[in-house]
């Protein structure tokens, strides 16, 4: 295994607060993510983990706080900018394009990079066709990587849940992101499948050097693969540090892990 070099801070979240009417989803959250690391976010249900990703992603606009990505600071980013800067994500409640095939779903991940305009695409000659084939090759590599060759042309709506999760990951990978935000990628999988998924995540992290932010409830997974863990509870940060340290943090045990772990 290639030795990963954990680099400088690539993504820095400062004092984020997010409210929905009376609900305080996030209160004054700060943490950072270093290049090439696997950063886990854990916390009980409703703690605000997904909302955190949504803020980074530009889906939600936090009322307070800022986000710094590669030296540029934003108080709000729009989704398109975020995507262009190289942040991709997967979703907790599958947000695949149901009516499209696996191949097309993953191809949408390449759309940002497509240059040819509408007319060339309509005529599908020369550059447009070449471009389409180039991207198709990339996507095929991802499909191979995720071992979903057999489902290429199947509409994703018909796939079992676990495979849909993989396609979701594939779509994010197709963006060739620098930072990949994963929201419970392993929910609804058995151990064997979780192992597969971990393997994919680790491979991406190793081979492409992609930084990963991971939300996961399976503590086994979190402990095994993450470099540092942030713990949220009721919208507040209650812990941050290497897995071992977090696991022994009494607040975390009380709020999240329960006694049996």
């Amino acid at each position, binding site marked *: 295994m290639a030795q990963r070099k954990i680099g400088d801070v690539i993504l820095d979240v400062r004092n984020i607060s997010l409210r*929905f009417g009376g*609900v305080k989803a996030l209160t004054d959250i700060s943490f950072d993510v270093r290049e090439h690391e696997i950063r886990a976010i854990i*916390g*009980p*249900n*409703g*703690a605000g983990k*997904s909302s955190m990703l949504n803020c980074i992603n530009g889906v939600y606009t936090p009322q307070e706080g800022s986000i710094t990505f590669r030296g540029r600071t934003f108080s709000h980013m729009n989704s398109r900018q975020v995507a262009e800067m190289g942040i991709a994500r997967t979703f*907790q*409640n599958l947000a695949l394009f149901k009516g499209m095939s696996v191949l097309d779903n993953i191809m949408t991940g390449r759309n940002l990079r497509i240059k040819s305009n509408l007319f060339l695409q309509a005529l599908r000659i020369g550059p447009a066709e070449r471009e389409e084939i180039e991207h198709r090759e990339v996507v095929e590599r991802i499909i191979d990587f995720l071992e979903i060759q057999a489902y290429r042309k199947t509409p994703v709506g*018909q*796939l*079992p*849940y*676990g*495979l849909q999760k993989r396609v979701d990951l594939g779509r994010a990978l197709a963006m060739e992101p620098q930072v990949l935000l994963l929201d*419970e990628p392993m*929910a*609804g*999988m*058995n*151990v*064997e*499948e*979780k*192992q*597969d998924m*971990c*393997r994919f995540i*680790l*491979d991406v992290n190793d081979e492409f050097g992609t930084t990963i932010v991971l939300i996961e*409830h*399976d*503590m*086994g*997974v979190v402990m*095994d*693969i993450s470099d540092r863990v942030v713990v949220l509870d009721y919208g507040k940060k209650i812990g941050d540090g290497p897995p071992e340290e977090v696991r022994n943090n009494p607040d975390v045990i009380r709020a*999240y*892990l*329960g006694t*049996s*772990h």
Partner: protein
Amino acid sequence: MTTPAPVLTVNGIEVIYNHVILVLKGVSLQLAEGQIAAILGGNGAGKTTTLRAISNLLKGERGEVTKGSIELRGERIENLTPADLVKRGVVQVMEGRHCFAHLTIEENLLTGAYTRKDKGEIAANLEKVYTYFPRLKTRRTSQAAYTSGGEQQMCAIGRALMANPSVVLLDEPSMGLAPQIVEEVFEIVKDLNQKEKVSFLIAEQNTNMALRYANYGYIMESGRIVMDGAAEDLRNNEDVKEFYLGMGGGQRKSFRDVKSYKRRKRWLA
């Protein structure tokens, strides 16, 4: 050990989606009265389909049972509507939450009691659900769509309990729940099972949990039951240990160390 009479018997059913996709290829299983049975299996094995077949929710997915029979306490139920089944005490918690997005959490829970009349009982039951899931109580006035994934999952489970069921079909109850809550959910299952004699049929990926609480287990693969047995036995089965519990060789393997080329266990050639 004398096995109690079966509440639910599935006899060699075949299910086809969209007239062409054959998904279940002769599945038979039984759920004994007052017991907890688990269906285990990988993604796409057909667990959800089996549960849907039992609760008659296939039609909406354009699927149909083409062979075999399903009996509830000796009565054939293939032609009953889901509502009839709920009246007979069979409720399914659907995979993927399926809360009523526009209704508040509390309204969601109350619709669960649709088949019941007694206002007092309903109110008591609501309180019970809130004590099971205090988180829901704090979010009771939010529209379900705007609650977190885990909260929705609790809501879906709570909603089913509101029907005061005697048989519950749970489809991946642990999905998306924090470990503590997973434990709690299974404790609730145990509690209901022991105190109120509710029978459970649980489709689960969290094999470890499921086998800890279940009396009996079925392992499914590609639309067939490939192994079944008392939960105890399954837990000690080497294959199950390795492939479902991640404990090959008695030791839990680190997720970091999984090899890139790993042969998978396949019962079916």
